[in-house]
């Protein structure tokens, strides 16, 4: 028997999103970050992805495998790279998807691990879906490194692996191709794992820094030229005006926006849009969380409590600015929801909390209607009937409101990738 642990999938899938804000922030975030997703935060994850695709292409070229085997080869490469990073010179503990199983397999078998795409050998219980293949391929495609489909690399990615990694794997080429195409036992302290370990060092080479800076951080190979231009400048501003320890709250975004106004008005405009949108989404999210804890409470009492907790109101909401963003919101979430958002922003900004509560309930109802289900909270005779309490939590203190920030806009991934590259300069 066993106790269950929290499933990683919960983090990847994100919250239940009762107000359906994810499509909204994704839309605005994509204007700034052309390629990364919330989970693509490891440069070495991308290195492994490129190696896996390269090896599959090579094995198919050399007729050791067919298209059908491309996923299997990828999974084996991912396993080898994970063992290599964990047992190699850096002895990496975090930043490896599946580190717990990697550690356990190495310990249990004295370093002789099975490399295979059979479920029992996988380093994640669901490596096919929640490993690098499932989580990083999309971002690599957007970066212009992978083609559509499960096989091969685009020339950009292929040439980079050819010049940067493959020469350093020449002495283990045959062994490596054997390991990734067929099930087998591999000594993690021998070759080719250790050769892989050397090229997967935490510290990047100058060529790697140049390549990943250009194509991951600055997204030079991405299609959306507007976002590409924004992303390159934004990552520069992050380097110049924030530091790796900066908490990505509203204060940090305001700083980026302020700096952007001096150098790139288009970027400043897009950052400004995010500031406007988040000024509504963030407080709406925290108030809705709070409502989930208020079963059977009168709307009037809840409004009074909000007034007491936040006597100076909710800062940063600008209705004229929000109105300019409503067409985009309507495009992603529908006209009905964008109208509710507008009304809710008006109520929150004007400290009309009773109305704001009712509108938040309507907002959730409209989202749940789209999902083919019922609302989480009903308002009956002036009281809340909380049908689902799930992620309810208390209100943040009034002092926290000016810097309140809840959503990613993909900028946290850009921030992480940017500083990973800087650490190695």
């Amino acid at each position: 028997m066993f106790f269950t642990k929290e499933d990683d999938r919960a983090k990847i899938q994100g919250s239940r999103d009762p107000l359906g804000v994810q499509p909204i922030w994704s839309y605005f975030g994509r204007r700034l970050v052309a390629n990364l997703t919330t989970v693509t935060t490891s440069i070495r994850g991308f290195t492994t992805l490129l190696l896996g695709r390269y090896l599959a292409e090579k094995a198919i070229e050399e007729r050791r495998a067919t298209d059908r085997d491309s996923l299997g080869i990828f999974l084996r490469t991912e396993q080898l790279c994970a063992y290599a990073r964990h047992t190699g010179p850096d002895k990496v503990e975090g930043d490896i998807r599946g580190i717990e199983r990697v550690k356990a397999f190495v310990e249990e078998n004295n370093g002789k691990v099975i490399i295979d795409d059979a479920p029992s050998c996988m380093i994640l219980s669901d490596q096919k879906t929640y490993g690098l293949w499932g989580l990083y391929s999309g971002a690599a495609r957007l970066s212009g490194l992978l083609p559509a489909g499960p096989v091969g690399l685009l020339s950009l990615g292929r040439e980079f692996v050819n010049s940067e990694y493959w020469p350093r794997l020449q002495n283990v080429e045959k062994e490596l191709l054997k390991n990734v195409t067929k099930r087998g036992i591999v000594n993690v302290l021998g070759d080719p794992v250790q050769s892989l370990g050397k090229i997967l060092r935490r510290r990047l080479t100058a060529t790697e820094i140049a390549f990943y800076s250009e194509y991951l951080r600055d997204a030079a190979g991405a299609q959306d030229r507007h976002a590409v231009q924004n992303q390159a400048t934004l990552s520069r501003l992050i380097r110049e005006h924030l530091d790796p320890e900066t908490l990505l709250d509203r204060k940090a975004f305001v700083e980026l926006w302020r700096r952007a106004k001096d150098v790139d008005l288009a970027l400043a405009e897009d950052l400004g849009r995010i500031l406007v949108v988040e000024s509504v989404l963030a407080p709406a999210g925290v108030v809705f969380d709070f409502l989930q804890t208020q079963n059977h409470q009168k709307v009037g009492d809840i409004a009074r409590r909000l007034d007491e907790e936040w006597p100076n109101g909710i800062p940063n909401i600008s209705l004229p600015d929000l109105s300019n963003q409503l067409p985009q919101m309507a495009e992603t979430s529908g006209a009905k929801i964008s109208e509710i958002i507008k009304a809710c922003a008006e109520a929150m900004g004007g400290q009309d909390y009773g109305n704001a509560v009712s509108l938040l309930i309507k907002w959730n109802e409209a989202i749940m209607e789209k999902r083919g289900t019922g609302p989480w909270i009903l308002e009956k005779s002036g009281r809340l009937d909380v049908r689902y309490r799930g992620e309810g939590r208390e209100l943040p203190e009034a002092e926290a409101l000016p810097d309140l920030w809840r959503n990613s806009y993909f900028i946290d991934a850009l921030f992480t990738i940017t500083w990973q590259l800087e650490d190695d300069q």
Partner: protein
Amino acid sequence: MARSRIEPKELSAEITDRLDGRQVRVAVFTSFSFDPGFFELHILPLLFDRSFSQNERVRRCQLEDALRSVDNIAVYYDRSALAQDAISPQLGFESIGVRRKTGVFHLKLIMLLVDEPSEDGEDETTPSGQPDQSLLVGIVSANLTRSGWWENVEVAHFEEIASVRASSKKCSFRKDLLGLLPQIKKCAPEDEKHEALDKIHEFLREDVTTDRPVNAGADGRQYTRIYYGQEELPAWLSKVKIASYRWNLEIVSPFFDKLGARALERLLDEVTPDETRLMFPKNDDGTGAVPEGFVKALRDMPKDRTVTWSELPPELTQRGRHPDGRFTPRHVHAKLYRFWKGGYSVCLVGSVNLTTPAHSSYDSGNLEAAFLVDTSDSVGGWWLSPLNRPPRLGELPDEAEDAPQEVCIDLSLKYDWRKRRAFYRYEGGKREILGVRDHTAMDLFTIQPVVSGKWIDCGDEAGVCLGKSLLSSSLLQVVDGENIWRILVREEGSSQRPSFVSLLTPEEILRMWSAVVPEHKQQVLEDKFESGTEVPPMPPFGVLGKDTQKDVTIFDRFAGVYHAFERFLKDVTEAIATGHVREAETRLCGEKYDSLPVLLKKVSERRDADPVMNYVTFLCAKQIREHVRSHHKEFCRTCTSGLEKLDEFLMLFPTLRSALPLEPGDDSLKFVAWYEDMFLRRRKIADRDE
């Protein structure tokens, strides 16, 4: 050897590890609370050894494909406890809402009947030619909801039963399972079909050794048993000799009796442990989630009954750090009774709360299930640590978790996609009229008069209404005066349920057919859903993922169509040959996004299409139909109505032929007649050669 610390594991990981790539043929899940949307998107994929997209719509398409290879999937859940954050399913698997006259349907059981592969990778076959099978049995405390599977602290235990051909090892709980299955059936109406349960029952009766141990244990170890309310829990524990030893007792349960502590008292009377530790359930804010009546009863217990409020190790109950530095707690929903002394320990693991209905026999309380399992290999000593001072009491947890809700209109709705008819079944007291609304509260139809005790056809109009509504959501509202109740419609004949994806063009459907590996299909769908644009035209020979879109010649286009149909035929014949009749039926006569009738419908409705291409597509379809007619007579007999629908589409063939740009009077008409004849004849020759 005993382990040094309690190692938690993800429930999903346990399932995939246990399956180890084996093909699931029958799956049965039971749950009290149920979120069908979560089950569909995040639990069903665990049954298949393949990759699934992160895009939910693509994932559902992939599941639609994958589900065709499974004979039966059934979920039994308590109708009174549909999860409040439930999302509507879109795939039409079998979900059977049940209701009990006494207590609730509370057991959380997972049974997976799997095919065994042989050493050489092929399926091991029985004398009848069917693959040998094994049964995975899991009993857990987790409901089929996001909080149950991903977030809460739950407990679980899994066992596997091999067929008698693979193992002659005695099974100590086979008889318990055979006793439990009819109890599940009894919770559903008498005329309900239980194909999935019946197959598992048949496996247990026919394929598993009937030998079982005579004693409760041997060599200092307790044999594994299943408790399902055969009698009251204390009496059953006595029967399986647990009460014969002096133990320490640890109890983890999130729910207690509200008035008094009867269940605990009776348990202690029977087991008479030296010392008892009881987990103190807490709310997120740290207050106690314990009824005052229970606390008082505990306080009033005799002095020799020491029960100490305790807590689980923090590494089990804490989740990630909150931005303000605090650890956020995980809700403990596990139900565990651990009897231990020295190096011996036995655990009762499952759905049994420390409440009187849970400890009652199945005919007077809840229907529960728990494994009694020897855990002497686990960590020794106490697992729970005493609390110096229990926190003050707070609100009691959500009643919806483990108790029926106050109002429940005992109405079931089902929809038969083959007949396009809606049926209701009502089991409650006398009622004149019930309203049925869709999930947005729009009136669909009314039931009047309300007949009790059998399935009643709701009529033509209701059938049409419900059929349309189900395409948006399977969650409906039933209205009885001021009471409104949410129900999940049970859907039958899912192969005829129109796919929720209908936006693929004929070219895209052919590309899907041509895909060599599932990842190719995934890519087609992801391109479609993410870009919202048309997928590039049909490449030759279905080769995807490479730069083959340029210079597509007329030869390539037609070769692509022939190739797609060739692969389609191969898949269908393989499915028929391996007994996956449902899969063959769905592809040949279903209404899924890549079913043949869907392709033909789209081709025939296209306004600006190339008439030659349309003609060739229909001709290929005709060829496939002829092949199936002549080679798979048994299959044709079982799918008569579906094939009739396909034939109706094929009757459009002459119309498409007449649309060909042919000049009357020249030889082109003769050519077409010759071509058709040769085309269909070549198939016959190819079949003969095969």
